[in-house]
């Protein structure tokens, strides 16, 4: 049976089409979910894509994290359903309390839009297909991508192996400890600022490194079935 992966669209979401395309490239069925939905249609995993949900009003991701669809997403994630938050999706998962820390304005105050190398540092539901220590190249495009948390939280994340992605260069956005992505304690909820869904085909992106996140989760879903 083909795995079904939900892709949420909020008002102001931009990258849902690319996220759904990445899901299909990986061999799964992409299921569109709307911000007002209260039923996840039985999907096996959820991608929260990037963009500017609700115009970044209040704080990036703050309103989306409190929208109707996020109730069942949080419940399902707590039961172990894999969830991937990309860029604004990462901000939403932090605001929803599924991931620790917060994303604040880049130190240089500039929106950054370029390719960047990341080191994969943890084996999670979304990175099981990568060797820990390998590097991937994907686009980074965000103005509020600076990961922050207090020192105790950062130490805990590093100690528990929950830093999933780290910038392979000094973080251009000023992210503390060069953190680009983190995961939940069970390794099934992952958030990152850069965009793997834009790097799934050399024709339309810097390469196909990003596809590995989507094929990784399929491997996990099949193994669990």
């Amino acid at each position, binding site marked *: 049976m083909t795995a079904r992966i939900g892709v949420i669209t909020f008002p102001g979401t931009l990258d849902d089409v690319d996220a759904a395309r990445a899901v299909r490239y990986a061999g799964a069925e992409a299921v569109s979910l709307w911000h007002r939905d209260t039923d996840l249609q039985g999907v096996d995993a959820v991608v929260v894509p990037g963009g500017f949900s609700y115009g970044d009003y*209040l704080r990036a991701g703050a309103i989306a994290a409190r929208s109707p669809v996020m109730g069942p997403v949080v419940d399902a994630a707590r039961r172990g359903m894999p969830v991937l938050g990309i860029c604004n999706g990462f901000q939403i998962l932090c605001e929803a309390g599924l991931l620790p820390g917060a994303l604040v304005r880049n130190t240089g*105050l500039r929106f950054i839009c370029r390719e960047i190398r990341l080191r994969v540092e943890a084996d999670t539901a979304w990175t099981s297909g990568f060797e820990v220590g390998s590097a991937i190249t994907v686009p980074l495009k965000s103005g509020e991508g600076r990961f922050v948390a207090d020192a105790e939280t950062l130490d805990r994340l590093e100690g528990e192996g929950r830093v999933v992605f780290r910038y392979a260069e000094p973080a251009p956005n000023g992210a503390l400890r060069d953190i680009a992505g983190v995961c939940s304690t069970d390794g099934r909820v992952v958030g990152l600022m850069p965009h793997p869904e834009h790097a799934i085909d050399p024709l339309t992106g810097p390469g196909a490194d990003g596809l590995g996140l989507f094929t990784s989760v399929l491997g996990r879903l099949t193994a669990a079935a």
Partner: protein
Amino acid sequence: MARVIVDVLPKAEILDPQGQAVARAMGRLGVSGVADVRQGKHFVLEVDDSVDDAELERIAETLLANPVMEEWIVRRERNGQS
């Protein structure tokens, strides 16, 4: 009815590059003596008597501010007067 003010600021230990940019612009205006600027948000709420202080604190902590990176002050004004 009462007017409630909620001020939200980035925590002192969180770098505030916007506040720093404002501080630098003051220098260009010829203003000296401003050591630091932090930029935040100012909310004005009109609430009825059913909203008590505990509810206001809950609103501030769970929605208006993100406790990971921000601190806040809730201030109640009587009949719109400070």
